Each structure stands twice: as C-alpha cells, then as structure tokens.
C-alpha cells in the first residue's frame, strides 16, 4: 500500500503540473497540445497501465486490511475515546479513500473515456470547460479534493513509517514534503474547477463580466 500510494502521489504531482496549463490564457491551445502528447506518447501509455494497476491494488489491499482490522475486535468497546489520541485524518482513510475511488470513476468517465477511448468531438480544453460549467460537477470535485487532502495528510507520512523511513532524524523534512502533497497539490487541483466555474464557464462570459 505504501509503494502504490507514493507512486500515485508522484502521478498527482505530474497531473497537476500538466493541468496548470489550463490557466494559460490562450483559448486552450497549449493544453490541447499537452493532451495530444499524452495520447500519442507510448511511454505515457505504458505508465498509465502501471497507474491503473496501482489504483486497483491500493484500493483492494486497503479494503482487505480494513476488513481484517474489523475482525480483530469482534466485541466493541462501550466507550472508546480514540479521538483523544489520534488525528481525524488517520481515522477516516476508509471513508476518504472510498469517496476518492468514486470520484475517480466519475473523473475517468468524464475525461479519460471520451478523450482516449470513445473519442470526443471537442478537445480536452473545451471538455474541461463544459464539465466545470456545472455547479454540481465542480462542487463535487472540490469536495472530493478536500477528502483527497485528508487522505494524503495521513497517507503520506504513513507510507514512510511503513517503509521504516520515519524517526530517523529527518522527520521535519518529510513533513515539509508531506505538506506539499496533502495541502498544496489538492489546493492546486481544487483551484481548477473553481476557476473554470467562475471565470471560464462555457456560456458564462456575461457572468464573469458581471462579477468583475
């Protein structure tokens, strides 16, 4: 789980870096080029297979571990003040993980399937623009990314503990890197639906002008 989780984190960094091209104010020209590059590059397509396998492995092993852990305490406590000693993020990984998985299904169905599988008559930029014009769609993205932040807040340092790399005198460096992954990256992703909903809505030019 630790290795697949960290691999997914490296993907997130790359994915965000690429998606920040959406902010380039050129009507999506640069982003379309980036999308073309992803579709045509055989190395990317290979890593993609590893990526999907990692997502499945990570989610399945998370589920098995969760089941085993529930079975390890058949009789529950009458009173259990776990919250006194642990962080909220560490107690809700199953919930945050499940929502992220659900998000991924929606996300891949909205972008990956039309752009790479069935083919779409609009380009990547315009598809993003169209999708994020919906308040529900954008709102769901922000919610899912909030949960991704919680998931990584626990998960990032947890992976290093599992690999035996914590408690060795460089924990402060690790938590600085962890901050980038659990705070900066999810915030960066969340800024995309927010930006598109308010400033780049498909038919929202008037709205944007009104707002300014």
């Amino acid at each position, binding site marked *: 789980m630790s290795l697949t989780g960290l691999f997914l984190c490296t993907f997130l960094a790359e994915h965000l870096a690429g998606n920040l091209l959406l902010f380039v104010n050129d009507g999506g020209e640069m982003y379309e080029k980036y999308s073309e590059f992803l579709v045509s590059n055989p190395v990317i397509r290979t890593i993609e297979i590893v990526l999907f396998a990692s997502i499945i492995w990570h989610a399945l092993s998370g589920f098995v*571990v969760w089941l*085993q*852990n529930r*079975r*390890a*305490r*058949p*009789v*529950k*406590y*009458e*009173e*259990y*003040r*776990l919250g*006194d*000693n*642990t*962080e909220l993020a*560490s*107690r809700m*990984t199953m919930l945050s993980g499940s929502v992220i998985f659900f998000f991924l299904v929606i996300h891949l169905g909205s972008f990956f399937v039309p752009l790479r599988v069935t083919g779409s008559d609009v380009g990547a930029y315009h598809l993003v623009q169209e999708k994020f014009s919906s308040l529900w769609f954008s709102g769901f993205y922000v919610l899912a990314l909030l949960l991704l932040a919680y998931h990584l807040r*626990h998960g990032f*340092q*947890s992976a290093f*503990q*599992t*690999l*035996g*790399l*914590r*408690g*060795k005198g460089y924990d402060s460096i690790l938590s600085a890197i962890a901050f980038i992954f659990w705070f900066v990256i999810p915030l960066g992703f969340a800024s995309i639906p927010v930006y598109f909903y308010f400033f780049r809505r498909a038919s929202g030019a008037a709205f944007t002008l009104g707002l300014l």
Partner: protein
Amino acid sequence: MNFKLKIWRQKNSTDKGRFVEYLVKNISPDASFLEMLDVLNVELTRRGEEPVAFDHDCREGICGSCGIMINGRAHGPGHGAATCELRMRAFQDNETIVAEPWRAKPFPVLRDLVVDRSSFDRIMVAGGYISAKTGGVPDGNAIPISKPIADQAMDAAACIGCGACVAACPNSSAMLFVAAKVSHLALLPQGQPERKSRVERMVAQMDAEGFGNCSNNYACEAECPKEISVSNIARMNTEYILAKIR
C-alpha cells in the same frame, strides 16, 4: 470522593457478559484505581456477592499485569501510567466511570476485567530470546555500546507487555509491543545471531494470533504506560524488509 461505576461483569469465557453499576463512597483522592476496586470488592464480599476480577501484581507500574479500559482510554485518562498508577484524583467527584476489559480477538475475556494475554507469550516464544551466552554482569565501561544506542535499546526494553497498545489501537494491532521487543534485541550485540529470523518469526506469530494491521494511527504510543515510541515500529519495518530481501 464518590463514584458511580459501570463495570463489565462476565462469569467465564463463554458467558455473554454485561455491565453492572455500583456506587463507591469515601474514596481517597490519592487511592489508585485498583485500590478503589479493592474497596468495592470488600463491600461486595460483605454483601455476599462475587468480587470483580481484575489482573494486578506489582502495583507500581513495572509488571504489566494490570490493564483496564477506563472511560474509553487504555489505563484511563492521562499518559505514561499503568492502571495501578492511576489515582482517583484524575476523576471528578460523583463521576460515572466505565471500566471494561481490553477488547481484541487475541485477548479473550476470561472473567470480568481479566483477559488472556498468552498470545503475547507465544509471540515471545517465537523469537523474543537470545542464544548467546552472556556470562555474568560485565564491567560498565567494558561494554562496547555507544550511549545513544544503549539508550534506544533501554527505552524499547521498558515495555512491560501490558497490552495497552493493542487495546487502544482501532485495529487491535500488536505492532508496538512486537516492535519494542524486536528493537531492543536488534540494537544490541547479544541479539545479532537471531536478528533476521527473530523479526520474521515474531511478525508471523503476531499475524497468526489474529492481531490487526498497523495503520499508523499512533494511538498505541499515546496510551503506552512506558511511552514506547512508534519509531520502534519504523525500525521493525526496516528490519523486516531487510530480512525478507537479504
């Protein structure tokens, strides 16, 4: 001080068990939690009722026998103390106190607040020993171990095997206990001959006993009466990975 107690009563390992409420009066704030139970048991015996069974021995935090889940916390409120070291002044007067046994599949309840922790013994049998003949106590300065290493080994060796780590863990994982034992021996020269097999066998036994998987919640470290650090778990993970790939 007066308290209302809600205590888990269970006749034997097959009994279903239930909570029973008791009132205790005129308890000294300086009495330990176990002494408060003694007062209750004297009263129960006087009334001809069965006293509450609980584990205890040294009553000074060094044997690891005692262990009660008190108000949802292993060894009760506060940190770094076993149930026998917990004083009644930690509670409010007239407070309702819930006392229940450690709950984990590998710790079956034998009676009332007493659980069977022989799963820990079997983990120790699997690898918590050394075969090196160490002779008598050597001269202090003649031992070639640096102070930082000696301190880390000593901190790990402080584990008294009480099981609070398992009780506090949302997954009933025994990682802190096993990590303390593995670390303590892996750090010292006497532990080297079995270093590789020890971690593999103790972890295998831990899994076979049905303890849960560590999800790095760190509830164990917070409730450990000896304040064993979770960095021992990181060390055991390293030991385990190295043992598997070498």
